[in-house]
């Protein structure tokens, strides 16, 4: 096995705007996003449908598909450069080798006609890996560490594996080429609770053992609370709040974060204390063109919210919040 102690790289997203061509013109799904993924941390990117979280995650891989394109900003990964500027062979090499991506519904993203082992060799050849035996050993080692019988899994077809096993195979594929940036898009959707808890434990363990910088994209605040150090909350293509998970959950500052956390069904406490947010999340076509994107659903709406987009302010406790109504010191 090739053991190279690579330091987990930091990822720095700045001023990123990703727009999609539609009949109504080019509309931004991600708008002016600044986000730092500190080296060695797990960040949970949470948002509802249409928040732009998956588009943001794809831009990390330089994989925004047409009719979408990065119209401004950069995604700089330490030791690689700006993902938004890479193309062709260079981009293809970086994907997998430097940045591992586990796709949404990874449970169904394996080739049903080939065994896992065959797909692993295909991956190795596509990336011109000379030492295929070494690749196999690394894959077995990763599968072992995730509690799977490696030989059995490599000989298996997709349909012979359970959802939780497929998810672990997805993580193995993302890391087997020694990527040190790992992106997981909805890693536990469609998994049962006990399997989900198991996968989240594996994500934490693998992150630590392999020395990664990890981004978990999800609609589920609970998943972020279980695995991540930091939480970034997305709404209407903006990061509205970003900070340490426990602090943000204990004391959310942005009205959307607050509303979202209050809207989570809980196992204890007064059921009437929990409330749905009024209105519905915006879609690409209904995101307001100016002002605050959340104002339609916001209880703290002010005049300035109509016209001026709130900038991300850095708070004393290190988090950033993008809201006109939030002032330093106010809870």
């Amino acid at each position, binding site marked *: 096995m090739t053991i190279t102690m690579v330091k987990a790289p930091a990822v720095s997203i700045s001023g990123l705007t990703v727009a999609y061509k539609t009949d109504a013109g080019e509309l931004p799904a991600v708008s002016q996003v600044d986000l730092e993924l500190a080296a060695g941390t797990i960040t949970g990117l949470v948002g*509802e*449908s249409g928040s732009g979280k998956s588009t943001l995650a794809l831009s990390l891989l330089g994989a925004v598909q047409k009719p979408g394109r990065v119209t401004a900003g950069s995604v700089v990964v330490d030791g690689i450069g700006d993902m938004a500027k890479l193309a062709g062979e260079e981009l293809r090499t970086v994907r997998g080798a430097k940045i591992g991506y586990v796709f949404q519904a990874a449970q169904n993203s394996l080739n049903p006609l080939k065994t896992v082992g065959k797909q692993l060799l295909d991956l190795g050849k596509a990336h011109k890996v000379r030492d295929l035996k070494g690749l196999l050993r690394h894959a077995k080692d990763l599968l072992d560490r995730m509690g799977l019988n490696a030989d059995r899994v490599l000989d298996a077809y997709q349909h012979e594996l*359970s959802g*939780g096993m497929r998810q672990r195979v997805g993580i193995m594929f993302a890391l087997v080429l020694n990527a040190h940036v790992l992106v997981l898009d909805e890693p536990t959707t469609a998994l*049962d*609770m*006990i*399997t*989900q*808890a*198991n996968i*989240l434990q594996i994500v934490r363990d693998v992150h630590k053992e392999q020395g990664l910088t990890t981004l978990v994209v999800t*609609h*589920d*605040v*609970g*998943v972020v*609370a*279980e695995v991540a150090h930091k939480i970034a909350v997305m709404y209407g293509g903006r990061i509205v709040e970003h900070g340490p*998970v*426990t*602090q*943000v*959950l*204990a004391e959310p500052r942005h009205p959307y974060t607050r*509303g*979202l*956390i209050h*809207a*989570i*069904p*809980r*196992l*204890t*406490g007064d*059921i009437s204390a*929990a*409330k*749905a*947010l009024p209105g*519905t*999340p915006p879609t690409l076509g209904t995101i307001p063109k100016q002002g605050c994107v959340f104002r339609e659903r916001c209880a703290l709406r002010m005049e300035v919210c109509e016209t001026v987009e709130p900038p991300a302010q850095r708070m004393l406790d290190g988090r950033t919040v993008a809201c006109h109504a939030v002032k330093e010191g106010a809870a």
Partner: protein
Amino acid sequence: MIEGRGITKTFHTRGGMLASKTVTALRGVDFAIPRGGAVSFIGESGCGKTTLGRILAGLEPLEGGSLIIDNVDVSALKPKAREPYFRKIQLIHQDPYSALNPTRTIESTLRDPLRLRAAQTGRPESWVNEQTEHLLSLVGLNPGYVLPRYPHQLSGGMRQRVVIARALTVEPEVLVADEAVSMIDVSLRLGILALLRSLRETLGVSVLFITHDVATARYIGSDGELYVLYRGSVVERGAAETVLAGPVHPYTQCLLSAIPVLHGLEKPGPDRLVPNEPLDERKEPPGCLFEPRCPFATAACAQRPPQLGRLGDTIQDHACLYPATRHVVAVPAGHGH
């Protein structure tokens, strides 16, 4: 009142030559849904909860056991004679995107079943219009906005409300909600749950709630009953708040322990429990079905299946030889232990 007694169901699959296999989905389930009540079935995929809902809605033929709807044993009737009984039970399933015909406006989606209903019950045509608007208002939608629109023009939450309104057109006694909020945006889920709760009060309709997301079960009413299903058997049953606050069956405890803790707001329960091994559906243990995975199993557990009851003087029914209350659910941070 809808009652099931000893409901069983087995699926036979043919996976190529000689590979046919039998999957037991339900192994003798008893339940009762009182009028206007709320009953939740929780468990993981493959536990039989969806099959049970489909049997109740008449979408899956009953195999063993009996189903009693308003004092009539429906299982003894001929298929044609069952229809009016099954109409009283309406299924709302998880995907509001595929439950509505994309080529029809909401108006035609609601009006057709209402016209049929009017003809059946001898109501005038004007009733159809009134009822269309009434039902939409009841589910929290603005008729003027929604009626001329197609499903794709509505959000997921609005679509699920239309699905519920359509189910109400036949004046059902029971709504079977199978994972009815799992595809709805988090900020809107409580709205749908509160709607189901309010329909119980305003219409006296009862709700059978089927979910893997245990916390949502509390929100259709704190007076609800909870059934915990494991591999087609009920392993624990009682008032929802009782079972969640003090589960006694180790499977319930493992299931509740797996629910994410909102660190910062909550702390993990002190007795969190993890099963010994993952589920292996090929194993058919002769005793308790959970025995191979149970951290507390003894030789006695492998002897014969335990019966649902109150062994050990518990408040709730359970099927375990060694019931013990464990505090596995997250507790608010800053309180408790």
